[in-house]
């Protein structure tokens, strides 16, 4: 997920309001979404992100993987993430 320019450009506020300065589009994400995006902006790997979520939220490994994958699908749909 490194070199993902679109993600790095996103302005992520602590309230979960996301602004894409290139397209002018905006989105809302929840608390976990904020963490994932901030970690992606720092070029953290999928394993590192999953580990962070497991350490900070009461959730099973399988659930994190499922949620993470569906979050990535959403990002791809909005053309914010390419891989």
């Amino acid at each position, binding site marked *: 997920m490194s070199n993902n320019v679109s993600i790095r450009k996103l*302005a992520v506020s602590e309230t979960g309001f996301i*602004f894409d*300065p*290139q*397209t*002018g*589009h*905006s989105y809302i994400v929840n608390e976990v979404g904020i963490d994932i995006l901030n970690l992606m902006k720092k070029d953290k790997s999928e394993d590192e992100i999953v580990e962070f979520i497991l350490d900070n939220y009461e959730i099973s490994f399988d659930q994190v993987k499922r949620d993470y994958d569906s979050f990535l699908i959403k990002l791809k749909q909005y053309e914010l993430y390419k891989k």
Partner: protein
Amino acid sequence: MIKNDLVIAVTGLNAGENPQPGVPFIRLLRRTGFSGKIIGLVYDAYESGIYAPDLADEVYLMPYPSAGGESILARLKTVLQKTKIDVLVPTLDSELLPYISIEERLRELGIRMYLPTREMFMMRDKSRLSEFGKKYKIPVPDEMILSSTKQIEDVAEKMDMPVMVKGRFYEAYQAENEEDIEKYFEKINNKWGLPIIIQQFMKGEEYNVVAIGDGKGNITCQIPIKKVVVTEKGKGFAAVVINDLKLTHFTQKIIRALKWRGPLELEILKSAEDQKYYLLEINPRLPAWIALTAGAGQNFPEILTRLAIGEKIKPITKYKVGTLFIRHNEDIILDIGTVGKLTATGTLHNLRRN
């Protein structure tokens, strides 16, 4: 900083359903600390900005632009008997050709403007967009120019539906079939005349850029935006400042080709099909949303006024991405006698003290 002994005249003071740039232009000049005289040149006593508090000092009724440059010049000569004017800023599409035609004579009278030449202005005419795009390798949607309803059959043969039906100066409608084209052809023709421009409808995201060109192909300042709330008539009632390098380069290419002098607003589409930018329209004046320029760190009215009086300004490239405007209309309460006075005498004075 603009010297307070300058007298600045501005047109386009309507701020209602179809807002014009004059009101925000004056507000932004005032925001710089300018306390000199500002004159509103209006066409109708019901232009709402005339009566907005702390805006223009004086207003004068003007002949409509369709009366031509000579009529405007004659009226300005009578205005000059009452007040000097150092800088004049026409803000409406339909005013530009008449004002361009009298620019030299206004200069002789001490009135300076910062406008394109007639040649620049005609190069960007909506009816010549295809020619312009081809000449300078700037992608534009396919286009047909109609001067009669008989040509509508050709449109159906040569273009895919839907198409955009546009007037030369104002208005644009999306047509789904030949009947729609005929309906909008008549509607626009009755109001604005011929030709009618048919532009291929393209799916994608629309962006706008406001810029001021220096007449040599350089950009003095530019702000790109994405409209986030659009009215039924396509007017942006909320927009956010963005930053896209490709869009900046696209803008530079257009202004270099035109060697544009003065302000303009570009309407640009990012095609959903190929993700490329297409030029939809070049509006030869400031947009109604110029207040956003000052919010983003570039006060376009101040820059334009300084350029008009001959100051050299280095290109300004920084602006605050993420700055948003939301349009907010308010009612102005006044005695009808004030409107009557303007209608009867053609002028109102001491407005800021009222």
